[in-house]
């Protein structure tokens, strides 16, 4: 059975390498100071999608990403690993969106894609850490959701069976298709980029990137090969209500941002006694480090 698989992927600042300029004064992320990467758990989701594709010949994996035009980079990255193509949902009016507005926008894009069997995405993005977007999309599309997925065990007869990684153990659930599955970081790592695909798809570009190409030969190459043409959709194209997108559609407002500065400079040596340990615990509870 061939499947139409949609993978939600996000280009995120690499928050694992945060420097001192990571945050702007207004509390938003200074994206210029951090390298942009493929959100790690979205890569886990991509691997699950590619496994479904391997098991179901003829399936297609489409990447859907919302962000700046340069987010097309994650689509190429996914294509190097096995995805077939993708869509960048990009528009000035989409900027400043919280999870509610983001999920609405993405849900509109999914509706535009129309024919899908399963939507996969990472559990959460490392820039916001909310884990809300996947579930909200499912709600907006009115389809089931399976979160914290670690492995898709089976997909047949219109149902998907998924192993979930929960705090206290593992749960296996079955859901009717189509549905949204958000994948946990404990799922298998994504396969590496493939050498041939890398050479084949490195010129894949979105329309706005194509306009900036200076090499006529590459332009001609892109025009002659449909697989090198990424899609770029705007808010109007996905028929999004202007009131529900971007800043306007985002009830979440950042009130204030504080820098946490660790002041302890040295290590402390405790003597080897129960009393010393107890004193430390009391101290840590008292200053709210724990508890």
């Amino acid at each position, binding site marked *: 059975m061939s499947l139409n698989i949609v993978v939600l992927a996000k280009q995120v600042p690499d928050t694992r390498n945060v420097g001192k300029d990571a945050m702007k004064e207004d509390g938003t992320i200074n994206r210029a100071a951090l390298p942009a990467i493929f959100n790690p758990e979205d890569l886990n989701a991509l691997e699950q999608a590619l496994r479904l594709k391997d098991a179901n010949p003829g399936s297609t994996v489409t990447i859907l990403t919302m962000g700046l035009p340069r987010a097309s980079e994650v689509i190429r990255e996914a294509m190097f690993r096995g995805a077939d193509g993708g869509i960048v949902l990009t528009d000035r009016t989409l900027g400043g969106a919280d999870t509610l507005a983001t999920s609405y926008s993405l849900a509109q894009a999914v509706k535009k894609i129309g024919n899908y069997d399963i939507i996969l995405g990472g559990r959460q993005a490392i820039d916001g850490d909310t884990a809300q977007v996947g579930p909200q999309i499912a709600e907006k599309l009115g389809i089931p959701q399976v979160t914290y997925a670690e492995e898709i065990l089976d997909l047949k007869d219109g149902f998907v069976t998924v192993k979930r990684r929960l705090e206290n153990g593992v749960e296996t659930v079955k859901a009717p298709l189509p549905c949204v599955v958000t994948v946990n970081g404990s799922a298998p790592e994504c396969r*590496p980029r493939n*050498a041939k695909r890398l050479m084949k798809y490195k010129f894949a570009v979105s329309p706005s990137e194509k306009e900036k190409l200076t090499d006529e030969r590459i332009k001609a190459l892109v025009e002659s090969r449909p697989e090198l043409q990424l899609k770029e959709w705007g808010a109007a194209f996905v028929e999004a209500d202007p009131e529900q997108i971007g800043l306007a559609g985002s009830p979440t407002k950042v009130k204030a941002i504080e820098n946490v500065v660790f002041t302890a400079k040295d290590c402390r040596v405790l003597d080897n006694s129960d009393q010393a340990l107890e004193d430390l615990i009391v101290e840590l509870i008292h200053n709210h480090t724990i508890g």
Partner: protein
Amino acid sequence: MANFYTDNPDLRHHLNHPMMRKIVELKERNFTEAEKYDYAPLDFEDAMDNYDRVLNVVGEMCGDIVAPNAEGVDHEGPRVENNRVIYASGTEQNLEACRKAGLMGMSMPRRFGGLNFPITPYIMAADIVSRADTGFENLWGLQDCAETLYEFGTEEQRTKYIPRVCEGATMSMDLTEPDAGSDLQSVMLKATEMPDGTWRLNGVKRFITNGDSDIHLVLARSEDGTKDGRGLSMFIYDKRDGGVDVRRIENKMGIKGSPTCELTYKNAKAELCGSRRMGLIKYVMALMNGARLGIAAQSVGVSEIAYREALGYAKERMQFGKAIIEFPAVAEMLAVMKAKLDASRTLLYETARYVDLYKVYEDIARERKLTDEERKEMKLYTKYADALTPLAKGLTSEYCNQNAYDCIQIHGGSGFMKDYACERVYRDARITSIYEGTTQLQVVAAIRHVTTGTYKALMDMYAATEWKAELQDMAASLKELTLAYEVAVAKVAEVNMPAYTDFMARRMVEMAGNIIMSYLLLLDANRNESFTKSARVYNNLAKAEVNKHAEFINNFTPEQLADYNVK
């Protein structure tokens, strides 16, 4: 999140060598395949970008998967169950990653599913893989055998086997036997022709790296009653046909993840590759030349990890109130390690480029007649490749052993414990100067290029470079060393006694190697000033070494040979 390609800018320096343009343009036949294959490059820049991107994948895979697996693979190792090899679990993961990344059959033509990479970027991948896990480089690097299959197999055999290699089938070269190690002329494995034209193999092979591979190239005696190399032919054995069992795997000191097998052939079906009687004389020689370049790359990878481990430890280890790197004795060891590493690597890629050039002309000659000019070039490049291959294999393997030794020395007592990677590096390094021909046998292959003047011609070619002002003094010193080399070589020629020449062979080959590596590092520094320091350190080493050998040769009389005749 490590990348063993991008964290080492020296690699890009060597990849972007000016000679690459010629290599790539010839290899890609002026980029005519772009019409036919959607992953073929449009032009030189596109091809170089492809190599860079693919090496980036190799670097990432090595940093994130192969290197973290190395310790576990070393401990777990492969095992034999029901006459079959089971790899260590980390090895399986590594192989799977290589297959998914499409890093098998890298140098094979596109029509067989390969990437059509020149040897140089392929060898660079081997260099990177070896740094991550030296033993795994053996398994991955045996894709080299496809090169021999491509060169000497029929079109039918190419079509049958090479696409499988490109998809991840592993290979082995089954050459050595209990009584035929360095002396391959003594191979006894019996090949018998069947009425249908296929062959049956019977006998035993020993010390076969990755002996349970999917596709084997086997050296066997096809001519009944013969006793020397002229009775040997090369065969292809497909594991799916059955008939070869793994009797045991060796318990080795190093590269423990790479299974070294004893194989028994019981009427194993095989097909002849190339012409009868040419097995050893032509094909195995070609196979070994490729393999030797592979071992040189493996050795450079070992030198790299040894240097990095030593440097990292020396910066962290505090004694007498400071990091031990602050002590001149330790700093000097590190500077010399780096110089040996850089000298090894520059010789490796110089060799790879000449191998690329002559092979690409050979390949073009399969399609059309070469022009006189091209034939002349091919002949020259073949000579350079022949001269540099044993030099590279011999010297880089000796240097990586020295670097592994110094790596432990810098770790002090801790290095003697099993707690640090350096002990594995030390064990893994040891085989490089032994297999695919010991250093002593590399000298045997190299010595004729001392006597016929190939090395001297290379030195003269390098000497004609226009040097930057700050490098002039080193260039001058190399001219002096070349003179000392010539005097020593002339002295040996004058004595004109085979035993005397043999006795001095290694000394003369090392002199040539020292001078050539010093020149190559100087050329690197001429192009990229980050190599200047290493060029200086190595130049000092070369001076000391060349003069040491010159002193020995110049003062040694044939009568003294008797003192070395131990019975």
